[in-house]
């Protein structure tokens, strides 16, 4: 709408209200948008400079460690494989992963709860299931980037160092499956804990507690069990903390060497139990999140 007053240069634009008659892309698009916004947000993209610091730093640490390992492998003569298994990488750097979940899961869900933005989402075409899936998917994807990127660096490094291609590819694949499982599990647990409290600080502390304290407790008890001669209990104790669960699954099925005391990882039978527990936790997290948002309406 413009009122033409002669020449083009002197056109006066009427800045009155313009209605929108373009396309409306609906629910699936809204879900994708929420997913990408949350995923970017996990790395501080599209947020303030301050909120980029921690996730970028943690991601940098992961990649730097991978680069150092590659450098060592290349510099050492007569190496035929990397000094560290792909599957062990995430286990060694679990503290970094834990910090990432603890800082970003509350950012992703507690904010909407605390500032009561949730009703704004639910007054739009998306529904509860879309919101939960988008948030869960975004967190898992962010974790997969965080844990998968260093593995990719290791793999490329291994290939540049002319290690055996078939072996490396197989191990790399196993590593990727393992971190994918880890990402989904940690994302589910992190979001459930974070969604239970609208306070971000509590959320951070609670996630750290769930991830690290359980690991501390489990590995201590495992150590005691192993040194007192009841080594058979060691694999079963690993069921009680997220990271040892992943350790168990990959030891049983993905050719990893267990970080349990004495390398007493679970066998195939116990491995099935591990896998079932992991799946139950993931499904359980989803169910709890769905429940959590049931009554957050207007």
């Amino acid at each position, binding site marked *: 709408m413009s009122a033409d007053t002669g020449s083009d240069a002197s056109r006066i634009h009427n800045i009155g209200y313009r*209605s*929108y008659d373009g396309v409306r892309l609906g629910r699936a698009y809204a879900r994708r948008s929420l997913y990408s916004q949350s995923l970017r947000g996990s790395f501080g993209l599209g947020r303030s400079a301050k909120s980029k610091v921690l996730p970028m730093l943690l991601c940098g640490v992961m990649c730097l460690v991978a680069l150092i390992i590659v450098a060592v492998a290349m510099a050492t003569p007569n190496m035929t494989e990397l000094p560290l298994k792909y599957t062990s990488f995430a286990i060694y750097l679990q503290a970094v992963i834990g910090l990432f979940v603890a800082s970003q899961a509350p950012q992703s869900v507690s904010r909407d709860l605390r500032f009561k933005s949730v009703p*704004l989402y639910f007054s*739009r*075409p998306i529904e509860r299931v879309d919101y939960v899936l988008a948030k869960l998917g975004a967190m898992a994807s962010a974790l997969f980037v965080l844990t998968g990127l260093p593995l990719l660096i290791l793999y490329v490094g291994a290939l540049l160092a002319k290690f055996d291609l078939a072996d490396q590819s197989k191990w790399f694949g196993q590593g990727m499956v393992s971190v994918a499982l880890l990402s989904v599990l940690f994302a589910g647990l992190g979001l459930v804990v974070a969604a239970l409290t609208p306070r971000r600080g509590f959320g951070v502390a609670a996630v750290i507690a769930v991830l690290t304290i359980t690991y501390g407790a489990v590995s201590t008890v495992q150590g005691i069990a192993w040194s007192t001669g009841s080594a058979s209990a060691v694999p079963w104790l690993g069921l009680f903390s997220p990271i040892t669960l992943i350790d168990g699954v990959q030891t049983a099925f993905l050719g990893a060497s267990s970080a349990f005391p004495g390398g007493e990882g679970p066998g195939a039978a116990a491995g099935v139990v591990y896998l079932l527990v992991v799946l139950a936790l993931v499904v359980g997290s989803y169910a709890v999140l769905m429940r959590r948002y049931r009554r957050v309406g207007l």
Partner: protein
Amino acid sequence: MIATESLSKRFPRVTALDRLTLDIGPGVTGLVGSNGAGKSTLIKILLGLSPATEGRAAVLGLDVATEGAAIRERVGYMPEHDCLPPDVSATEFVVHMARMSGLPPTAARERTADTLRHVGLYEERYRPIGGYSTGMKQRVKLAQALVHDPQLVLLDEPTNGLDPVGRDEMLGLIRRVHSDFGISVLVTSHLLGELERTCDHVVVIDGGTLLRSSSTSEFTQTTTTLAVEVTDSDEHPDGTHALRRVLADAGVTLLGLDGLDAEGLPGAGHILLLEATGEETYDLVRDSVAGLGLGLIRMEQRRHHIAEVFRSEAAPQAAAVATAGAGTGTEGKRS
């Protein structure tokens, strides 16, 4: 725009809506009710977020029970409470909400810039929302409800927490949402007075039932109450009382002193409430005050609160309240 038919919502212990039948047409409609009258429950049902216990409701001709998603695509909602994250700018936030409504990225950005300008946010829209005043936050909340160019917006207590100037600005803005943008509005409030000036039509609900539904002009006609306050003089030590006598002789219906009934204690209140039937009542008051030689301190139209609707509902002349063209339904039978 909105039609409900004996809509009820019962919770285990309370009945939030009780067989509510409404028919709301295009324009600005005020939904008035005290806290807990069922306003928010009604909005929740209209958005298709909460199933009704019984009865039916349709928004824009779409059934709330089965076509909730389609309704939510074409309706905007502004919640009563604070809902804005403080660490992002208004632009970022509204763009995100536009995309949540299904607008493609480019359109989302254009519509956000337009909408924020229309609600009166300019350079400050690039600053984090945390630093905004209440008035600015309310504008952002309104913008996110309008950004996808809905056919209808539901505004829940948009004037909450605003000072008188901010209140007037917000009411003016709401008026423009319909007159300039062509978007119909359902606005809730617990103050009837402020909606009278903004709305074409007012619906009063209480305890989940319809108390009254009529166009604003009828409302003001039947309920205009004039408050008059005068000085005392040596000749008339109780000016209010003297004026009361004169006006009563002239046939004006006195509604009583402020807070008291017509036979209230003389001198207990100094504000005389009377029913204004038209221009002539104003003239009569002016002439009577001048004739008595008193000073007129104030003569104003009273803002009506829900309580007054109750009172006039009980009075016999309330039966004369006709339901407006768009509004029908069971006139609240409260006894």
